[in-house]
């Protein structure tokens, strides 16, 4: 990067609760990519969850409190980068709506304008020209619903994967169809969720790829959990791990070797 350190924008990483708790390696991969895109990364301690579980359960009051908490945690950032289309959409699209009628309306709008999903941030906002990741083999990509339909993220991950040395992308049938995760939906309606992810697993296997990638850990845990249970050889990772070349952790739901 030609920029001097003092010109590097400050990017706050919104880790997401799943990455924080289940798979921190995704967070480090994301941080490495954001740094490579010419930004300084900070991780505000005031963040927890984007509030989507409350928001989608009809608990608007708690969703509003969490929305404001997140807005305030990232006040001094130039960017808020999120390794999840679902949480990014919550912060970019729904937080302004939640705070629209109160005194924090302007702050919420300013915040939302700074929010980017990771692949969109790298490809569309920072326009990075290369990625460090290398992968010899075929991958397939699952378009997670919120990123795809609420943020319009379709080309960004594919654009970035094309920069990974050795990688070929083999699309699966119905790559835009929901995997059946849906956050608390998978907990409240496990039978229906399972029926949906069964179809996703069939389509994923049909791609012929060795590795399934997506931008959302929730969907990935659902798909990986199903593939594991059914004895598929297909493994799953967050796209950030492949782009950053940080693949030392076992694939999702796989044992250490």
């Amino acid at each position, binding site marked *: 990067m030609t920029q001097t350190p003092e010109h590097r924008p400050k990017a706050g990483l919104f880790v997401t609760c799943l990455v924080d708790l289940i798979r921190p390696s995704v967070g480090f991969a994301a941080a490495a990519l954001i740094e490579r895109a010419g930004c300084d990364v900070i*991780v505000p301690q005031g963040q927890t969850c984007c509030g989507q579980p409350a928001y989608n359960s*009809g608990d608007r009051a708690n969703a509003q409190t969490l929305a404001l908490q997140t807005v305030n945690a990232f006040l001094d950032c130039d960017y808020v980068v999120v390794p999840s289309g679902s949480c990014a959409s919550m912060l970019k699209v729904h937080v302004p709506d939640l705070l629209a009628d109160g005194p924090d309306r302007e702050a919420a709008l300013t915040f939302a304008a700074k929010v980017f999903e990771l692949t969109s941030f790298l490809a569309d906002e920072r326009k990075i020209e290369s990625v460090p990741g290398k992968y010899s083999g075929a991958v397939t990509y699952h378009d997670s619903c919120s990123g795809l339909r609420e943020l319009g993220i379709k080309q960004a991950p594919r654009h970035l994967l094309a920069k990974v040395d050795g990688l070929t992308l083999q699309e699966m049938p119905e790559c835009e169809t929901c995997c059946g995760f849906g956050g608390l939906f998978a907990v*409240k309606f496990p039978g229906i969720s399972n029926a949906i992810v069964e179809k996703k697993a069939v389509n994923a296997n049909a791609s012929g790829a060795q590795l399934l990638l997506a931008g959302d850990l929730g969907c990935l*845990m*659902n798909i990986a959990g*199903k593939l594991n249970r059914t004895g598929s050889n297909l493994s799953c990772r967050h796209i950030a791990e492949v782009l950053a070349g940080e693949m030392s952790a076992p694939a999702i739901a796989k044992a250490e070797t």
Partner: protein
Amino acid sequence: MAGTTTLFKARANDAISNRGLQNALSELPTGLAANRARAKSALPEFEDLRESAKVLKDHTLAHLDHYLEAFETAALAAGSKVHWTSTPEQARATILEICQAANARLVTKGKSMVSEEIGLNDHLEKAGLEVVETDLGEYLIQLKHEAPSHIIAPAIHLTVGDVERRFREAHTHLPYDRVFNEPADLVAEARQILRQKFLSADVGITGANFLIAETGSSIIVTNEGNGDLTQLLPKVHIVIAAIDKVLPTLEDAALLMRLLPRSATGQDITSYVTFTTGPRRPGEHEGPEAVHIVILDNGRSELLAGDKRAVLRCIRCGACMNHCPVYSAIGGHAYATVYPGPIGAALMPGLAGVKETAHLAGASTFCGACAEVCPVKIPLPDIMRKWREADFAAKNNGLLQRAGLSIWAGLAKRPRLYHPLMRLSIAALSSLSRRRGAFKHLPFAGGWTRHRDLAAPQGRTFQQLWIERERGGPE
């Protein structure tokens, strides 16, 4: 309400293990959904039309009182009678009175979801009338005493074998060992039987896809021609339609007609689009002697006044169902409501009550595929979320769920408590997994692990590791 959710889940699980139903549903992606995609890609202005249709419907809904009155004036001028009804009870009583005044014994019916909404067939049959559905799909499910499982393909859950069996049982005057070589043979038999009914019916009842304020016309959009025979041959034609079906002008109907068949079946236009404006006029040789238009509210005025008005834009194409992962997994009957799928989840709480049906709004992954294909751009997930808010405010969801949410939110709102507590919990959970990478069984996550492995945490939280890295090494 926990009870309604439990019953819904039981029906959904039955549907998932019903192989015949699953076979029928498996054709949605390559059938109706693929047909829509082809029709859309062949019409470059499709997305612009969706926006125009949304604007048109929003304008009409904003001035609905005006357009309904204009419709009534024009319909009366054309010689029709107009009946305003608030509730399903009023609507079906009104229709029965019209039938009885005409000394009717046999009533033929075109396909109408509003007639399902008011429970019309049962009501007329209890009063001694014979009611015959003439849309092939509706006829099939009437023989099976079932409700429609899809708003445009009511018998989508049936296989050809189901139909064949039911025909042999129902049409006892025909030789039992007759051969059905292909679906066309079933259609021919239905046609032969229905033809008699068309000719001897006293009253014909249809729905309406649109009511036109400027002309007082009602429009039906069909593929079989049964609707035309239903409304033209009997002496009395009754139209049953809800208040949200009115449009200002015929041009407006033309706009929506470019979207409706394409979104529904992928057709550029249906086989028939029939305009009805009043009864037979002096000197005319065909048509009913009387036309009655029964207009139903049933909760729609309240929807109109509230924050879920957009749901009334719906033109009943069914695209939201055809693209819904939940509907595709469980079919329409599991919803146990007149309107299933995403539009059902968004509309039913307004028609049948929050306590009774808001659990359906909970049964969505919010993937947004429904809103993406909706020809009038109804933000279906947003409306479902508003019903969840109403349900939550009424404390209809279970105590356990509320308590869980409350504990989680209490923690998430206190980062200084949340981070250390999560650090401990994750360390404990991770040690349980003993480096196997995933849990096959986990007591408090049984719903998940019954069907799939649960990825085990890597061991420490990102926040913890990040702080260590910033400090230049482990604590």
